[in-house]
């Protein structure tokens, strides 16, 4: 079951990555308009040492797990 799901996930990601070839979509938020997004208060995980500890506190006492990751946003520089 896992392998089937993982395979579908993998294909989805490869397709999505392939979309980067269609790089002609004009970004509607320009690189010079990212002041708010680059602000540290907009970071999803500003203190990883604390974030991973709290994730652990909850995961150790609950049945649910996973889908905690994230990234993206930020200054979009380079």
């Amino acid at each position, binding site marked *: *079951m*896992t392998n089937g*799901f*993982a395979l579908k*996930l*993998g294909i989805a*990601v490869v397709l*999505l*990555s392939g*979309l*980067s070839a269609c*790089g002609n*979509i*004009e*970004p*509607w*938020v320009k*690189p010079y*308009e*990212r*002041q*708010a*997004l680059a*602000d540290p*208060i*907009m970071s*999803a*995980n500003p*203190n*990883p*040492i*604390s*974030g*991973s*500890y*709290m*994730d*652990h*506190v*909850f*995961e*150790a*006492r*609950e*049945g*649910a*797990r*996973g*889908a*905690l*990751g*994230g*990234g*993206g*946003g*930020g*200054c*979009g*520089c*380079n």
Partner: protein
Amino acid sequence: MSLLPNKVPNKRRSIFRIAALAALATPLLASAGVLPDDRADALYHRYEGGGVTIQGPSVLVRKKMAEKYAISANYYQDMITSASIDVEVSGASEYKEERDQYSLGLEYLRGKTTYNLNYTNSEENDYEAKTTSFGISQDLFGDLTTITMGFSRGEDVVGNSTDPTFEQDIDRWSYRVGVAQILTKSIITSLNLEVITDEGFLNNPYRSYRYFSPTDDRLFVLAQEIYPRTRTSNAVALNGRYFLPYRAAVYGGYRFFTDTWGIRADTFEVGYVQPIKQQWTLEARVRYYKQDHADFYSDIFDRVNQQNFLARDKELSTFNSVAFRIGASYEFAQSGWRFVKKGSLNLFYDRIEFSYDDFRDARFSLLPSDNANFRPAGSEPFYEFGANVVQAFVSIWF
């Protein structure tokens, strides 16, 4: 009422197992294009609730080289003193334990792609967990979209401190994929999916289920739990963050979880971040968690070996929890001081209230039957408790 050998501490096995899982789900940090800044953090953590106190340090350092490579290392320790309800119900006495965890991470940035590799090792006297993960993060569409994917592999060795010959394994695989999308100048959203599979000895060698005593149905008898040897879970989470024009942020998220054990859980979270003046940042957050019990879970069974799999782990029961958090951060050395670019002092406090709908406080039926508080087995009040979680940490960027 019979007990398991009462020297055996009834441990929160899942904490230790899940420790490795937290490493599995190590959140990938910045988007590709720029590696996060060098920093070092030292944290003191303390959890107190339900008769359990867990405290200890955590130290994290990360350093990049040539803006292309980054290395990070973490040492984390739990010092546990536990007289939890499970320990009390089994008749065991309070126990003390220590868990040490080491992590090492490597990152490589190339253009708009970041590759990362992570290894975590967690050890205590009767449990060892090793996890290796690999992940990729890719920026697309003018850096408005970030795709992340990751794969983890874990290997645990489960021991039993009262039986040196006892040794069982758990194998774990995790696959995750995520998309972060900038919607406007002020809004970023993300969608994450994760599938995790465990195989092996998945229960706690110290934990028991209970069934009505055949001689007196006001009392119960304990017997060792029997779990399935596999578990596959799926989780999907949606998150969003919005920048308020007067410089503050509001965020929220929802996660949906199901697994092959019949557990279904919903997690809701809402938070607010408010900077004050130049140096202070305050944060408030509410998290609501709700879960349905596993198929083979029951607070009390009618008779021994009533079904193939039997569990009484309250983590698999029907319950909900509400967590309130307030936090304050103070930034110092903002103009730099020697090699320090800036630093912060942080204090976070969480209050978590757990409320169980089908896990009863079995201590009430352990009381003498002439005690005014005595309740027959299966009619004890449902268990609930509150926990205080404190984090105090200092961070420096260099």
